[in-house]
């Protein structure tokens, strides 16, 4: 196993004449919680879209586990390889119960995945982790906003992914919920797992992130620990200059 979980190499994404991502390179290691921040339109979500296979880059590639080129693969293949992602808007299946979500998340494709008691154990374990054990029978559409966020995290967690990407996990949450989520993210950190978090909430980022990447207009503006970020003149300029 390589140390580098994700290697983004010379990535360019264009929508029409707009450069969403412009020759971007970065590396994310196992055991690391990496926060990606930046103003609106900096390319954060697009970066996650490219990694999870939703958007095809114009140039560049994404290597998983240091050697597996996953650019151009289908979303499902990338997910099965062990890269899972929570979306910006809570994306849950409103017609299914909480339990069914975790069961779907635990499976990998149509055939493989845990069955019977093993599956039940896994579901119980994940629900416990995200704190939804008492909601197992409810329809996802009936859950509150915070619960939906956690449900989605539980769903992507269920398959025990190697790379976990969280797009704005605390957007719209109360302080208390944010604190719980921060604890959850830290608890998910393991030596054989990389976690990428896109977030605007700086306090939250400070609490969870080992390292921060600041994107601006599709390029890396700064990379380093959070305290350095706050001190960096360029970053301050970008955030305040708007």
């Amino acid at each position: 196993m390589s140390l580098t979980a994700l290697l983004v190499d010379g990535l360019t994404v264009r929508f029409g004449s707009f450069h969403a991502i412009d020759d971007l390179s970065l590396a994310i290691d196992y055991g690391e919680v990496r926060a990606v921040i930046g103003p609106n339109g900096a390319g954060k979500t697009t970066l996650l879209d490219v990694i999870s296979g939703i958007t095809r880059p114009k140039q560049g590639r994404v290597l998983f586990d240091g050697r597996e080129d996953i650019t151009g693969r289908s979303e499902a293949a990338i997910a099965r390889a062990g890269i899972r992602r929570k979306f910006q808007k809570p994306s849950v299946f409103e017609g299914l119960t909480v339990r069914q979500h975790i069961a779907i998340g635990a499976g990998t494709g149509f055939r493989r995945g845990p069955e019977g008691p093993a599956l039940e154990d896994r579901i119980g374990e994940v629900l416990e982790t995200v704190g939804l054990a008492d909601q197992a029978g409810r329809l996802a559409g009936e859950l509150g906003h915070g619960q939906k966020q956690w449900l989605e995290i539980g769903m992507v967690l269920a398959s025990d992914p190697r790379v976990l990407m969280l797009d704005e996990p605390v957007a719209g949450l109360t302080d208390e919920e944010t604190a719980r989520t921060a604890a959850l993210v830290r608890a998910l950190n393991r030596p054989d797992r990389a976690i990428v978090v896109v977030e605007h909430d700086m306090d939250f980022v400070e609490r969870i992130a080992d390292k921060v990447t600041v994107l601006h207009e599709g390029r890396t503006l700064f990379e380093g620990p959070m305290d350095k970020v706050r001190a960096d003149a360029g970053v301050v300029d970008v955030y305040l200059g708007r």
Partner: protein
Amino acid sequence: MTRWTADRPFLAVLALLLATAAALPLLAGTPLEMSRYLANAIGQLAAFAVLALSLDLIWGYLGILSLGHGLFFALGGYVVAMYLLKHSFEVTGTVPDFLQFMGWKDFPFYWAGFGAFPYALAVAVVLTTLVAGLFGYVSFRSRVGGVYFAIITQALVYVAMLLMFRNDTGFGGNNGMTGFSVMFGWPMGTSGMITGLAVASLLVLALVLAGCRWLVGSRFGALMLATRDDETRLRTLGYETLRLKLAVWCLSALIAMVAGMLYVPQVGIINPRLLSPELSLEIAVWVAIGGRGHLVGAVVGALLVNAIKFWLSFAAPEVWPFILSGLIVLVVLVFPNGLIDLARLRLVRPMGPRRLAADVGEARP
């Protein structure tokens, strides 16, 4: 999804279907015997209900609206009509009309073998799977969905209609095919045949309903709902939704085909009007009125709308279109889940108005 044993509306409708199927032959000869007209009407209604189920399966549970399901309905219909004509010809020697007016001496070569029902059935299954599979594969692969899929399927069925209107295709053209006189060696139009076809339709409907109920209650059913609610989400969880959609789409097409095979012998004619975009749209209307995403809703919707249509197009032809459009608007505005909402109106709701499964998850922009 509740277990099927606890799904009381489902059990009620299933029991009603089976009871009607049993009553039709049992009452024959008694004073309560249903008239041939009625038996025939029930049989046709059952065929429509099967058709509605096929659409509900993909629209209600997969979120894909096809406005071209008449294509598969008609495909089944055409194949069974070819069987009936060829079979009638082999038994009675009657030459079909369209051969006469086209001035053709013999059946076109592709009619060979259609006198045997198993062969016709096999052709229907293969053709439906092929057409549905090919179209579905290309569409789903390029992620055509939502209203686009609806429009394209509508155009597809329209193209098929234009093609079948042509007389030189060897399928009867605009006239279509009629004059079926023999089926499985027995004469058509007798009371026994009419009852038999009606019973068969009811049994098939019951079977399809039970089968669909089993499917949507399974793990696969959960994945269908997940695809409907958020396909990208499901894909990024490692599921190739293309395969799932394709499988359900083909299954749905096959059910529609079966509905066509039941319908045509009972109505006694097939022609390209079955391919008109309006009919395909109407199927969606039945499902929407009954309750999208509820198998029972689709069945009830199809039965109700068509029963009223049968009755009104005779009793008060002028008002039917107004009633239909009124019904649609009512359903769309007041009962967003279809008339199945009526059944829940007085349900005690401790948590305030609950959103129902079918109310969400339409294709999003």
